[in-house]
């Protein structure tokens, strides 16, 4: 009960206020009394520019989710197959990204990805794999590289949980019936780990879709996504109305996508019931 009260006061009320800020006129930091209007929402929703920015924001979240899955699943699988000592090492490695602040880690990525002197370009040039330094910083690729590394734990941990819960005798049964390793993996291990994959994906998508620090630092001034626009509207321009509308729409779209995702997941997971 105290937890509910806490959530109501510090989460629900501010969110409602945020939503409401998009429905009234705010001039010079003050509400204009009785100025209820849908104009601010209409302006943003009717603007193809914002539509494009929302699409880019979606691809950023989606791309990070897919990459986290590709890189995370093997790590999670490996984790369940090794001994205790190796597990401890792996766990530290998996959690390492969470031990430093996202801003610090992102600055690290700037040094690795940035410019011809950057570590990545230096290595590629030295190996003769590229002739000209690649332009990665301030592109979608740069943002996705940084994002994937930072969100990986949120994908790996739920998958580990799902893999750990599997009954090993099922794998043995499959092998005993003549299934190869690959057959067992794709027909037994992967389907049984779907709940972990799906919850990990939902987590990574929502965090990436609404991420501010990484696109701001690795995407730069020409990589506009909704979170960076919200920051600019409220901080640099003090346009509370537009900021509130964009923030509400960002949250609203995230919730809608989560609901759709949940519904699709429920279908995929019907067999678990």
């Amino acid at each position: 009960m105290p937890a509910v009260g806490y959530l109501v006061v510090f989460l629900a009320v501010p969110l409602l206020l945020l939503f409401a800020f998009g429905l009234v006129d705010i001039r010079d930091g003050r509400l204009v009394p009785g100025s209820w209007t849908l104009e601010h929402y209409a302006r943003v929703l009717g603007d193809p520019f914002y539509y494009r920015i929302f699409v880019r924001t979606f691809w950023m979240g989606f791309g990070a989710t897919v990459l986290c899955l590709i890189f995370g699943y093997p790590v999670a699988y490996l984790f369940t197959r090794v001994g205790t000592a190796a597990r401890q090492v792996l766990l530290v490695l998996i959690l390492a990204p969470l031990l430093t602040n996202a801003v610090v880690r992102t600055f690290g990525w700037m040094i690795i990805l940035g410019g011809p002197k950057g570590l990545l370009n230096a290595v590629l040039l030295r190996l003769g794999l590229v002739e000209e330094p690649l332009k990665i910083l301030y592109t979608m690729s740069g943002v996705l590289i940084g994002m994937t590394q930072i969100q990986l734990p949120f994908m790996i941990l739920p998958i580990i949980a799902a893999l750990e819960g599997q009954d090993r005798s099922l794998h043995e049964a499959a092998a005993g019936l003549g299934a190869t390793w690959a057959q067992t993996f794709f027909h037994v291990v992967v389907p049984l780990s779907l709940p972990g994959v799906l919850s990990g994906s939902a987590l990574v998508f929502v965090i990436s879709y609404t991420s501010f620090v990484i696109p701001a630092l690795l995407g730069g001034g020409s990589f506009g996504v909704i979170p960076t626009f919200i920051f600019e509207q409220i901080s640099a321009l003090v346009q509370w109305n537009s900021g509130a509308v964009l923030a509400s729409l960002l949250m609203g779209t995230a919730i809608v996508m989560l609901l759709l995702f949940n519904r699709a997941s429920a279908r995929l997971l019907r067999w678990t019931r």
Partner: protein
Amino acid sequence: MKQGVIVVLCLGLLAIAVGMPLTRVSGQSGEIVMISYAGPSQEPHRFYLVEPFERARPGMKVRLVPDEAGEYVARVQAAVAAGRPSPVDLAPNGEPPHLRLIGLGLLERTNTDLVPNLKNVHQAFIEKGQGYGVPATYSLIGIAYNTKKVSKPPTSWKDLWDPAYRGKVGLTSASSNLGLGFLVATAKNNGGDEGNLDPAWQAIKQLAPFVIAPNPTALAQLFEREEIVIGPLWSTEAAVLASKGLPIKFVKPQPGAIAIVSFLSVIKGTQYMQQAHELLNGVLSVEYQTKAAAKPYFFGPTNVKVPVPQEAAEYIPTSLAEVRRLQTVNWPVVVPRRAAIVDRWNREFAR
């Protein structure tokens, strides 16, 4: 029933939250909060303004908060609208945000009786402040370039358009003073003016592909990473990069670098009127202005009694003739249209 209880509880708490005059912790501990720059540019504030002030007034503390994007404005605005004391007491602002804050009613008028050092300040600078704040320093927007990558030193703003630098030019978003100043100067250098920025949009489009940093600090990082080799930059940022040993040089390009005055102002709702004015006086003192104009900061002095040191000649105009060549921007025309300009910038370049 249960839901009803929660709704009532929620409304009650909201009423308390709105009605409660939140007393500020710092108000009781004698702490002044002053916005400052990030990185080494903050040092003049710390060493030559805050420390002497704290020594003279035991018990008073000044907390410097780095903020280059004006993030504090939204917080001050929220506090003032709610009738609470401002979370910030003093802030330096370039001309564009200075005018914007006057318009928003977030600055306190300067009580000139409490700032005797004002008598030594260039009258033209004081007038730009419109009665608010004090003109603390000025900086130039010119061209910074990497001396190892740029063989022919730029002399004119037009040199940015040299095809040799395609893809290596760095600009800053128009949401920063740097980006906005460059935009207006580009308009003026191409036949437009503050009221007609169209020539600037055309000219900047021809610079493509270029790199856009969200703020001047990020632009400086791009210089450091050699992601860019040339671009418009603050004289002070260029000086800091050069002092770190990077091969960065600053030029005041033809037909003139852009001078932007930075005003230190008392923020509306401060509880330290008297002390804040002492800091305004301190920032105009010969001691502060001399140190801030020296290596490696090179902030232009507004106090007529402070000579520009020879080592600063690259970053600050030293002669009257050079001062006359500086470009200024008629900010009162530009500032009211700032949100629209940033919107256009995003639509053109952040798609």
